[in-house]
């Protein structure tokens, strides 16, 4: 039985065609660190930086710091931010633990404060509540997700960032769920930093991610060590990207990401088609009386739902074990958002589509749910 994969909000599968080969090829070639030891060599990291800079419409590729994942990037941003004790970070209840846990850690480590803005029943931040919280707390940093990984609802980034700027806050955007799928434009939107992953909608390998750092932000390096340049300095070199990239990079995986980015550039995601398919899935599930979280606006191809009387975990197990349908159930590492949605503490069943899913697969998934619930 063929696997039907609908867990792309966790990690994309399949990857961009040729990605695995690009990784394997880089593992097989003789290891020469670009810029380290004076050899000319192919430089997948620089290729990634340039392709990512083009994708996000930023001028200077050196401002793209390559990391091992979005969590790594978020930690560089949150732990490296120059907080004073009692400073405040404003965030939202829709955040993933990759934001919530570093903030919790920073509360203890640097004695900062954190305030959380509520979301509506679609998992989206309401700008009026955001504005009110900004005026009340006057944060030094505002961090929020571009799209909820639980519901797919996309936040109005430009408006939220603009409001944060009005009170002097720096803005950190978590674009883990959106980069490669919809526009992410930090310079246009007044966003200072963007954290992202390579293995979701960029269709690259795991072990890749990054952080865009705008010119108005100066972070303390969190991880320090060898950079291959300016070795006589005791501290990390001031130049980007080296200042925030200590240690040997994951070159084979970045070769894979560079390949995936090039492939995406030549084959842009057919977003309308993917969203239509997600809509078809949501409608089919609603017809089966599933309680599907409504999007009420711009969204990613995530369909999150519960089935009254059915434990979410059992549905996920039956889908996977009996029907070879891969989805995700539970809290989705975003524990605070669920009390604002229609689900209870058991979380939701989540399908997250990619460009590679088909109408036939969507129909099979709907009929599988129909058979499970009788």
């Amino acid at each position, binding site marked *: *039985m063929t696997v039907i994969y609908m867990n792309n909000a966790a990690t994309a599968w399949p990857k961009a065609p040729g990605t695995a080969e690009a990784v394997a090829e880089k593992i097989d070639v003789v290891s020469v660190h670009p810029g380290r030891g004076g050899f000319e060599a192919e430089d997948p990291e620089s290729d990634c930086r340039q392709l990512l800079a083009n994708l996000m419409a930023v001028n200077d590729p050196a401002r793209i710091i390559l990391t091992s994942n979005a969590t790594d990037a978020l930690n560089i941003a949150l732990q490296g931010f120059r907080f004073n004790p009692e400073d405040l970070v404003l965030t939202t209840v829709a955040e993933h633990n990759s934001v919530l846990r570093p903030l919790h850690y920073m509360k203890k480590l640097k004695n900062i404060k954190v305030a959380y803005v509520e979301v509506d029943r679609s998992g989206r931040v309401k700008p009026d509540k955001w504005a009110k919280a900004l005026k009340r707390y006057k944060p030094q940093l505002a961090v929020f997700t571009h799209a909820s990984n639980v519901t797919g609802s996309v936040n109005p980034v430009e408006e939220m960032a603009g409001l944060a700027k009005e009170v002097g806050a720096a803005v950190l955007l978590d674009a883990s769920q959106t980069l490669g799928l919809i526009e992410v434009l930090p310079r246009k939107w007044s966003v200072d930093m963007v954290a992202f992953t390579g293995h979701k909608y960029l269709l690259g390998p795991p072990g890749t991610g990054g952080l865009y750092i705008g010119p108005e932000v100066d972070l303390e390096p969190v991880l320090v060590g060898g950079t291959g340049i300016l070795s006589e300095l005791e501290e990390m070199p001031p130049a980007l990207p080296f200042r925030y990239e200590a240690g040997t990079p994951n070159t084979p995986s970045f070769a894979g990401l560079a390949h995936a980015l090039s492939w995406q550039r030549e084959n842009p995601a057919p977003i309308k088609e993917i969203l239509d398919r997600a809509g078809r899935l949501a409608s089919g599930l609603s017809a089966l009386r599933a309680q599907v979280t409504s999007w009420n606006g711009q969204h990613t191809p995530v369909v999150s739902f519960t089935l009254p009387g059915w434990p979410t*975990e*059992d549905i996920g*197990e*039956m889908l996977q*074990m*009996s*029907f070879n349908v891969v989805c995700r159930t*539970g*809290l*989705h*590492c975003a*524990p605070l958002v669920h009390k604002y949605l229609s689900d209870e503490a058991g*979380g939701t069943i989540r399908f997250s589509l990619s460009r590679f899913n088909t109408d036939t697969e969507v129909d099979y998934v709907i009929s599988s749910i129909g*058979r*499970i619930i009788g």
Partner: protein
Amino acid sequence: MSEFERKKLEDCFVSRAVYQYRLEKKIDEAFVSWLEKISLSCSCRRDLPRPYFNSTLADGTQIKGVLGDTAIKVVYPDTSAESSQKAFEEILWVQP
């Protein structure tokens, strides 16, 4: 006597003890019948492409899986995970 391999599984919830047991032979109707005998409740969805069973023992331990596979998923109750695990593994070891 029946050999098995045990692997701890992780999920979203803090206090749950979830394990996968890989058995030495494929799960068949005899295994489900055995589960029915030892369980407080046991259902088997034979109408699904791969029949799915879900049983609950008196102490709250849940055993789930599909016919034809070699793995079962076992969720031990929060309050007695250690003793429930010991008790279940003892009977799993001697299941026919």
